[in-house]
């Protein structure tokens, strides 16, 4: 391979690398009301310190007849109220490519969410 080609290949890889960096991002939606469900046993040291965080990293497959995909938030020990307080959505290059390659049938879901503390 000539040095010209090598340079070009490196540039392409560099471009893809930079593109992948920019295509990875997260957005956090936070309710202005209510307290987050606490987790007094948590030892996290990030934004979610003391919060009961549910992390979801999965691929949802849409049926041919399905237009909308609803992921249900149900009451559980980690989400006693069944109501969302904070949700962080993370987009990755892999997720975008998967959706593109499968024509939207497979959708990568990488989220963290915290439910509202039950009020009494």
């Amino acid at each position, binding site marked *: 391979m000539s040095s010209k080609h090598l340079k070009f290949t490196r540039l392409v890889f560099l471009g893809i690398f930079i593109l992948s960096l920019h295509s990875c991002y997260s957005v956090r939606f936070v309710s202005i009301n209510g*307290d987050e469900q606490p987790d007094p046993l948590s030892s996290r040291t990030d934004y*979610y310190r003391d919060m009961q965080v549910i992390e979801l990293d999965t691929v949802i497959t849409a049926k041919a007849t399905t237009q909308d995909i609803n992921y249900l938030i149900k009451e559980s020990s980690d989400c006693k109220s069944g109501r969302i307080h904070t949700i962080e959505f993370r987009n990755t290059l892999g997720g975008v490519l998967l959706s593109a390659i499968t024509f939207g049938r497979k959708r990568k879901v990488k989220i963290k969410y915290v439910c509202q503390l039950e009020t*009494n």
Partner: protein
Amino acid sequence: MASTIAHAKSEWDTLHHNGPFPLKTLYITELEGEGNLPDKFARYTDAAHEIQRLIQETKDAHQGFRAYGSRWSMNHIASHHDRMHYNGFMNMHIPTFATDMNANSNYHTDNVFFFQCGNTIKRVSEVLSAHGKSLKTSGASNGQTIAGCISTGVHGSGLDVGSVQDYVVGLNIITGPNPQDIVYLEPASKPALNDTFAQKIAGRIIRDDEIFKAALVSLGSFGFIHGVVIEAEDRFLLNRYVQKIPKKLALELSTTMDFANSSFKIPQEVDANGKPNRPYHYKVFINPYSKETDYVVEVMYKKPYQTPYPDPFPIIKESIYRDLIYVFIKIAEKFPKSIPWLIKRLRKTILPLNDLERVVTGTLPEIFWDAPYQGAAFACSFGVDHKDSAKALQVLTDLTVNEGPIPGIFAMRFVKQSEATMAFTKFPITCMLEIDGVLWKPNRRIMSLNQYGKRMIEELKKHNIPFTIHWGKNADWDHPGLVEHMFNPASIKSWQKSRAALLSPEMQELFSNHFLSDIKLKNQVTSPVIEPNDPIT
């Protein structure tokens, strides 16, 4: 039935990593479901009995017990090396009605609210807002539990308002495992609720001014504060301004509190004669390493609630991105002399400079909204008479610059005197002079936080400036004679005597911790203090 899970633990830490502190057992209690026990009083007393069961269990094991909420205190005041109880799920609100009011009460029925201990300031404010009401003041944020706030004396910067404990009008305290150990306590001179209400939640009613004032700031050692009765007020708006003003003027306002005759004037905030209004809140930010001739000040003026007003959240939500600071602190630990330079570079993230000339209007809970967790932090906070504020600031900034540098900046807030016996806001208007920053690791180039705390105490003493220290902040807490220096003997005696009136010697021991030992307030008073003719029903 309320249920508790006991977790075996070896250590516990504060939210801001000021520990860790040793711990054997962590209790987490959850209320019985509302569907199973719909009556609020039944659910509340059910929880009280569960707490009593835990107290009995702890007593039988000859161990100690301490309740905590959001663990925002930055020292070991909330910790116990034996057993701790997490209160955050105990967050009931029990409505009170005109029929619940004491015949001698001067409180407006609509302003009296009853909350269980684990309600956060945010939740309390939401309940009040739903009734068109507001807290009179809060701390700088909203995550602390109501019981935690009053136990440590949380304050804002209300010149004429006071601290959180100053609008508490009644307390429901669990002082032991027996039926009569569930106490409803309120001042005899200002009763709020009647016996019928009190008997639904307590086995004993005490109306006593001295005991009530002592129990307001209890340092967590008057038993388990289960319920808090507060006096709210009509919802109001605050207009917030951030300005740069000459240092001399900022300090003149701090030492005189004379806003009406000051040259500090915000055109929209004047009276009919054009004289400046007295603000609700006044705060001064001080970078001890800056030679600038101005200080940044934050002032707020109270206004009647009315809609519409501009959405305050676009400005309030701008959380500070601190990750960069942590990188810088790592540099600072190795090269302390770089701290002034680093703080100068970071001034836009640690001072509200982006808010200059931007007016924000919002309710109290909107203005003092969420403070996201930002990592390991320290805060040292001294209370001095506002007349001494400039002198104390000079003394402490000189110390910080000459013997530091320390990675933090100073601020001054001003709070009306509290009636609580051991309130650190004990001066007519107390200036809370605080330095906040990021925790660092001491080495031969930079002194430890404890050494810094010790030197601050020594310098204030050397310059004869009377002071107190915020109970929930960092300090050299076992400094010899510290509490005796901060409070007069009568106050200390009254506080200890009142504690003994509520708690048996055995329960005094159970509800004591290392913090109480460090400040030498653990000493038991064994003689019963409540006299037969005291107004106790």
